[in-house]
C-alpha cells in the first residue's frame, strides 16, 4: 500500500470515527438501554438463522 493510500484510508477512518461520536452525542434518545436490548435480541436471532444458512451453503459446496 502506497503512502498516499495509507494517509487517505486513515483520513476516511478518522471521518467515520468523527461521524460516530457526533451521532452518539446528538441522538441520546434513540440509543436507550431498552432499544439496545431489543436490537441485540433481534440481531442474535438473525445471527442464528444466518449461521444456519451459511453452514448449509458450506456443507453443500464441500460435498
Amino acid at each position: 500500500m502506497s503512502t498516499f493510500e495509507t494517509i487517505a484510508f486513515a483520513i476516511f477512518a478518522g471521518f467515520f470515527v468523527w461521524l460516530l461520536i457526533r451521532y452518539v452525542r446528538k441522538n441520546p434518545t434513540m440509543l436507550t438501554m431498552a432499544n439496545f436490548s431489543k436490537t441485540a435480541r433481534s440481531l442474535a436471532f438473525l445471527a442464528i438463522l444466518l449461521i444456519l444458512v451459511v453452514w448449509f451453503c458450506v456443507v453443500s459446496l464441500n460435498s
Partner: protein
Amino acid sequence: MHQRESSLTSKKESILSTHAVLRNTYLLLSLTLIFSGAIAYFAMVTNAQPVQPILFLVGAFGLMFLTQATSKTSWGLLSVFLFTGFMGYTLGPILNMYLHAYANGAQLISTALGATGVIFLGLSAYTVTTKKDFSYMGGFMVVFGLTLMIGVFLSFFIPAISIFISMAFVLFASAMIMFQTSMIINGGERNYIMATVSLYVSIYNLFLSLLRILSAFSGRN
C-alpha cells in the same frame, strides 16, 4: 360519526400510500438489479480492470450523496441508475477474480447469489407478513454501520480481520433489509428512491460478504 368516517378515510389513504411506496420500491429495485447485473456482465466480458479502492469509495459515496440530494426530483431516477451501474461495474472484476482464483469459482458465485436471494426474500416476506415494527433498531443500526465502516478501513492495515468484517456485514445487511422493509410498511419511509438505494446496498453487501465467507471456507485454489 363524521369524525370516525374521516379517521377511517385517512387510515385507508395511509395504507394505500404505503402499498404504493412498497410496490414502487420493489419495481425500481428489480430494474436496478437487472441493470447492475448487465453492467457487471459487460465488465466481466470486457475484462475490466479492478477499480482502485479510493476511486471506488469516492465514486460510491459521491453517487450515493447525489442520489440522496436528487431523490425528491425526477433526476433521482437517473442518479439511482448511475449509482447502481457504477456498483455493477465494480462487481465485474471481483467476479472475474473469483472465477480465475478458485477452481470452484462459478459454484461459489452461484451459491452466494442463491443464498442472497433466499435471505432477502425470506426476511422481506417475514417483515411484510408480520408487519413488525423494527424502528427501535434505527439508532443502533447507524452505530453498527459506522463501526463497520471503521472496521473496513482497519482491515486495509490488518487483513486478518477482513473475514470477521464480512461476517458482521452479512448480519448488518440482513438487519438492514428487515429494518428498511419495516420502515416502508409502517410509514417511516415515503421516498421509494432512497428505499431502493438502501435495499440495493444491503443486497450488494450481503452478496459480496457471503462470497468472501464461502470462498474462505469452501474455496478450492
